[in-house]
């Protein structure tokens, strides 16, 4: 019974680890980019103007997710896909401006509400920026509108799965290590060293 539990744990540790390993590599390498990169960003391309765009009724009056859902109806008309960050209504100028982003692209959509025209500025983002983007999505800001794109919701699901499986792998890893008697002493020493550095750093930063 005990051996069976050990074997099951070892196999799950292996297969769960293999599944999330590309995500772990993505999150780990993007940390180095987010912590250190000062890369010049690529400039946006010249804006494209789209005429006779159908602007959904009530888009200015609605709030939050409702307004974002209406704004999403504009995107296929101007050939843009991605997550809408927020909406900015410029009432005096009768304009609606919002950013749209996804890995590989950042776009700004500028809607002239009275003329029914839309200006779209696109900026291609590089591989490292895409890594950073995925690392930070969905993030803590604008939670009421976040996840308005189906692929963002799918990414959240996968990012969550990565976290839960990482927690499982770390706990099962402790069990698998502890089963090796010859490694207990040095393992405990390293665990203690890690704990001292971790709690020591936290104490130093917040004291």
């Amino acid at each position, binding site marked *: 019974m005990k051996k069976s539990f050990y074997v099951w744990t070892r196999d799950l540790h*292996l297969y769960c680890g293999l599944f999330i390993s590309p995500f772990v590599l993505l999150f*780990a*390498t993007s*940390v180095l980019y987010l912590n250190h990169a000062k890369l010049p960003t690529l400039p946006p391309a010249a804006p494209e103007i789209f005429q006779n765009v159908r602007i959904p009724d009530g888009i200015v009056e609605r709030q939050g997710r409702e307004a974002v859902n209406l704004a999403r109806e504009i995107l296929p008309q101007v050939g843009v896909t991605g997550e809408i960050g927020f909406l900015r209504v410029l009432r005096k100028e009768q304009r609606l401006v919002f950013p749209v982003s996804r890995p590989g692209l950042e776009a700004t959509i500028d809607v002239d509400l009275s003329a029914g025209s839309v200006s779209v500025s696109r900026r291609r983002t590089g591989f490292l920026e895409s890594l950073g983007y995925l690392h930070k999505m969905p993030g803590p800001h604008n939670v009421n509108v976040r996840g308005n794109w189906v692929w963002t919701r799918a990414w959240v699901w996968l990012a969550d799965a990565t976290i839960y499986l990482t927690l499982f792998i770390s706990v099962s*890893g402790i069990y698998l290590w502890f089963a090796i008697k010859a490694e207990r002493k040095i*393992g405990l020493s390293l*665990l203690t060293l890690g*704990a001292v550095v*971790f709690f020591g750093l936290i104490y130093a930063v917040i004291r």
Partner: protein
Amino acid sequence: MPSSVKATFETWNRKFHFYLGLTFLFFLWLFSLTGLLLNHGRWAMAQTANERRETRYERSIQAPSGPTDLDRARDVMRQLALVGEIDWPAQAQPGRLNFNVSRPSDSSQVRVDLSLNRAAIQHFDNSGMATFRIFHTFSGSRVNAPDSRRDWILTTAWVLAMDALAVALVVMVLGSYYMWYRLKPKRRLGSIVLAAGLLSCGVFLAGLF
């Protein structure tokens, strides 16, 4: 590769896998749990991470000294007993020294009138959950702000710990590929599972939608 070298590599590769895992266990747990909080701003627990207590006060100070704004800001911080990472507002105002100081547990907006030698401070004490969450993003550097620099030694130390965890995870993953591949009975199912992971991650990374 001679068999003795191969055996030594395999032994140490396996040992490193759990040695690194054990050493960085607490860091891994912190970044995992705070990652969940950052991804789920609607959770009640995440809402408490938005709570902070604000206080405002003013102090007379001695004229800040130093050749650069950074030195002068540090002098003001010393006088006001503030510590943390300095961040500069988008635009400087003539006759004033304005800066922000932050660390996971608290932050302050400091506005100094240099003609009156008077500092107005808006101070925020973060809740415990907010402090916990901020550790995930506490790097003192922003990719989209090329001029931002780390200027507090403890921010640098924390970033080094983040980097070390990231490198350790990459080493552990690459080492685990080797260990798995050496287990012939596990290759087929392992290949399927790894391909599923690569595909689902790669679709997003390549922006194939």
